């Protein structure tokens, strides 16, 4: 359970990090918080030749707000998301990630790039239609969250590309509901419901390989006021649309039943009268 040997570089800038990745031609890996990568290396599921430590690159650790969008630097730690007050949805999602010793190091960029289907931040990013800013050898580009997540632990990032920040819109109202076996565990089911610029978003994580946007429930919610029947209808629509499978953690039927129940809870939170005006 020890990592295979690698070279270690600590570039002072994004350009230099990208240069190191390019030089390694596919055999380099960024290390940010290390909270997912270090276990992967210890189990030798990956054996990169070069580890590119981005932790000391200045300017990647800030959260800034312009109007109703938060620009979150790639190195913003889960702990910092939990402490900020601009987006209570992000604070709540961060609270569900692991434990204090994980949140103190794990980063926003790392969680998005790792694209674990059970992780909280990818579900939030997909729900909010977040924009990912990445820099590669050919310069800077933006990627929509739904285009970034391609499969379990798979993204559309190029080998030598690095995430530098994520733009997350601040919803007017939101709900977050997660089912996990123990406190701090990854979610079996994670549901984010949010209203952004007048339209509803429903996103379910943990069931499919990538966060699942339940478009049909979104149109049910967009279609009018949420009387009790509509909440259930929207929750059922979300669960019915997802393809999932059984594994040692839970059967497919259980997962689908829980997806419905936790979608219902998240919608109820989001539409509760007490949430009105609370961002």
């Amino acid at each position, binding site marked *: *359970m*020890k*990592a295979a040997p690698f070279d270690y570089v600590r570039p002072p800038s994004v350009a230099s990090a990208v240069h190191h990745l390019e030089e390694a031609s596919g055999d380099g890996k960024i*290390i940010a918080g290390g909270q997912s990568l270090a*276990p992967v*290396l210890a189990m030798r599921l990956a054996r990169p030749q070069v580890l590119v430590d981005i932790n000391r690159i200045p300017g990647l650790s800030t959260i800034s707000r312009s109007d109703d969008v938060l620009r979150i630097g790639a190195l913003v730690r889960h702990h910092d998301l939990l402490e900020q007050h601009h987006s209570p949805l992000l604070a709540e999602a961060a609270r569900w990630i692991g*434990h204090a010793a994980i949140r103190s*190091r794990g980063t926003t960029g790392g969680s998005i790039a790792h694209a674990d289907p059970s992780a909280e931040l990818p579900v939030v990013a997909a729900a909010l239609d977040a924009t990912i800013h990445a820099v590669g050898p050919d310069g800077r580009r933006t990627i929509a969250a739904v285009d970034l997540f391609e499969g379990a632990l798979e993204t559309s990032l190029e080998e030598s590309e690095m995430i530098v920040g994520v733009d997350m819109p601040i919803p007017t109202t939101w709900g977050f509901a997660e089912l996990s076996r123990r406190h*701090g565990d990854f979610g079996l089911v994670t549901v984010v419901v949010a209203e952004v610029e007048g339209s509803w978003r429903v996103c379910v994580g943990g069931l499919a390989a990538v966060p699942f946007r339940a478009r049909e429930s979104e149109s049910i919610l967009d279609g009018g006021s949420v009387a009790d029947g509509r909440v259930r209808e929207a929750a059922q629509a979300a669960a019915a649309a997802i393809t999932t499978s059984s594994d040692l953690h839970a059967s497919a039927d259980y997962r689908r039943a829980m997806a419905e129940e936790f979608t219902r809870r998240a919608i109820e939170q989001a539409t509760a009268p007490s949430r009105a005006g609370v961002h």
Partner: protein
Amino acid sequence: MQVKFSLNGRMESVDVEPRRTLADALREDLGYTGTHVGCEHGVCGACTIMVDGQPARACLMFAVQADGSSITTVEGLQNDDGKLHALQQSFCDRHGLQCGFCTPGMLMTAMDLLHRENEPSRERIREEMSGNICRCTGYMGIVDAVEEASRTQSG
């Protein structure tokens, strides 16, 4: 690579391979065996230490990453005059340990909690200690110990 950091208030310098975890560097290269290593993938909490005032898993950091930082391990808890830290004393008094394997990580996690919160409820203590696994005590004694230390500390 040559790496320098402050360890429990003393400057230490150590020459490590990049793949050396901070936990192994502390234990094998510097002889600070108080930091225990269980799962080596972040799950058990036995290796929890403080890095620049924040709790961290020493098994998920490479020693080279700690260059220039300030580290506290369980060896740094005791007073200079040999008197135990309030948490160490309450773990003894409240049967917060049996074999002691998980204890250094429990102490560091609890210390971080008590830095952040005065007199946390039992429920909060359970929540915050849930990332540290003990195979012996059944946790009652551990929660008792943290609760008692929080009272001593603020009393």
